[in-house]
């Protein structure tokens, strides 16, 4: 006669030292080994989609920018692109390049932030501080561009609000060269250090077939060897720049870390390319037409593909705005990655998808009185 096995259930989050975001995962464990994971989100629902419907469509640029603090520029950019698609507004060439530069600057600071948080999640405090110190270079460039450290607020429907002069372009070039040197200094630690490798190599395996089946996006799917990158669609100036998506075939947390680390170099290259190829000219093509019609748009954010769907009815308010952020797509792959691992491996694996729960929450279920 077989004995009935006893499992332990314990919650991880929403308040946890390694989780900067309120995500709860309920783990069922057999001693140290994870048997089942159930996610629970809904702690930070903000009702942004509904607010977008009630707001003036031009004010929504600044509301969409606040969906995510880290990818703020890309959110406002993709919203503006979607409205531009509906109203057939042509964006000036220089504005397209400026948007590309600022998108990549956002990706740089997001990846550096993540690499730091990841080091912190492993308990590698000194690396965390070093990476965040180096990230300041990017934030200073952002401040020089737009006047704020994080929120650029430079997007407008039909172009951008701020231009870059030669002096600022020079500062960008020297700042990025300095950043490259600093990244090269900590690069071998993330790539070769035995303690980092012991936490990442072979942990959180996401096989290629499963990554595709569960719909992973961004560095998560690229770490499983699938070259899926929305930038290859050629939106803004990406079509004119030379780059290939970075992929790794080892399918584990280590691969996802290296994808992000290599993308830091790629972003620096892309900004330099865009700055060299940027033509002179106007930066804003003002459109006064109210949007009437439907459009969808996909952009590659630091965490993966973001999806925008906008329906306009010819008035100042929009009928529907739907946003799907990359973390929503990456939660099912995360759950499959965790099964079979030990409790001590949870923080690096959960962090390896770069969860951003506040941008993900779109629906909340309120229990009625009944």
């Amino acid at each position, binding site marked *: 006669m077989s004995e009935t096995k006893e499992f332990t259930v314990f919650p991880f989050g929403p308040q946890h030292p390694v989780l900067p975001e309120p995500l709860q995962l309920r783990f069922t464990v057999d001693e140290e080994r994870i048997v089942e994971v159930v996610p629970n989100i809904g702690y930070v629902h903000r009702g942004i989609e509904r607010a977008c419907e009630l707001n003036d469509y031009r004010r929504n640029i*600044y509301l969409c920018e606040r969906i995510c603090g880290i990818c703020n520029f890309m959110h406002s950019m993709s919203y503006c692109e979607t409205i531009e698609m509906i109203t057939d507004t042509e964006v000036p060439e220089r504005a397209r390049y400026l948007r590309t530069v600022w998108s990549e600057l956002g990706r740089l600071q997001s990846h550096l932030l993540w690499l730091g948080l990841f080091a912190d999640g492993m308990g590698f405090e000194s690396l965390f501080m070093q990476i965040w110190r180096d990230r300041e270079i990017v934030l*200073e460039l952002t*401040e*020089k561009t737009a*006047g*704020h450290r994080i929120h650029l*607020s430079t997007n407008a429907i039909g172009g951008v*609000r701020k231009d870059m002069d030669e002096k600022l372009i020079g500062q960008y070039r020297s700042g990025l060269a300095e950043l490259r040197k600093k990244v090269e200094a900590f690069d071998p630690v993330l790539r070769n250090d035995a303690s980092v490798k012991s936490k990442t190599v072979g942990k959180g395996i996401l096989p290629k077939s499963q990554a595709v089946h569960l719909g992973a996006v961004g560095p998560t799917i690229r770490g499983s060897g699938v070259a899926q990158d929305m930038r290859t669609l050629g939106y803004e100036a990406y079509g004119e720049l030379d780059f290939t998506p970075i992929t790794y075939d080892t399918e584990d947390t280590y691969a996802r870390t290296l994808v992000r680390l290599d993308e830091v170099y790629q972003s620096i290259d892309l900004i330099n390319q865009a700055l060299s190829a940027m033509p002179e000219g106007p930066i804003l093509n003002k459109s006064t037409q109210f949007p009437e019609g439907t459009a969808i748009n996909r952009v590659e954010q630091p965490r993966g593909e973001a999806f925008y769907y906008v329906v306009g009815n010819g008035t100042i308010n929009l009928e529907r705005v739907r946003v799907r952020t990359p973390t929503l797509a990456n939660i099912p792959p995360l759950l499959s990655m965790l099964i079979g691992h030990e409790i001590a491996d949870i923080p690096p694996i959960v962090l390896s998808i770069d969860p951003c729960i506040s941008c993900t929450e779109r629906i909340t279920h309120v229990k009625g009185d009944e």
Partner: protein
Amino acid sequence: MPKMLWNVLRNLLSPPATVRYPYVKPEPEPGTRGRISFDIEACDQCQDCERICPSAAIKVYPEEKRIEYDPFRCIYCHLCVENCMQRAITAEEVVRSPEYEKVKEIFEEG
């Protein structure tokens, strides 16, 4: 190991990466989007700023020539500063200091 020693020595002898804040105040970057104020004499009460403000932080009362500005709703995007035809909104490069009470700022004649 020699590389590590070199790093240790360099970090020991180099100044800290942070600024000694209360004693040394960092200079704001040129173009920093800081606090704003209204010049009611120059204002022609057109309400453009009220219409354009993404966070509805500005309320203009044309009959009374009065502007109510809520600095706690303001997101400091400076759209109003760029769009004011009369150049009646002044932008500063200094970030607003924290306060204990949420009070609206009222600008009126006299």
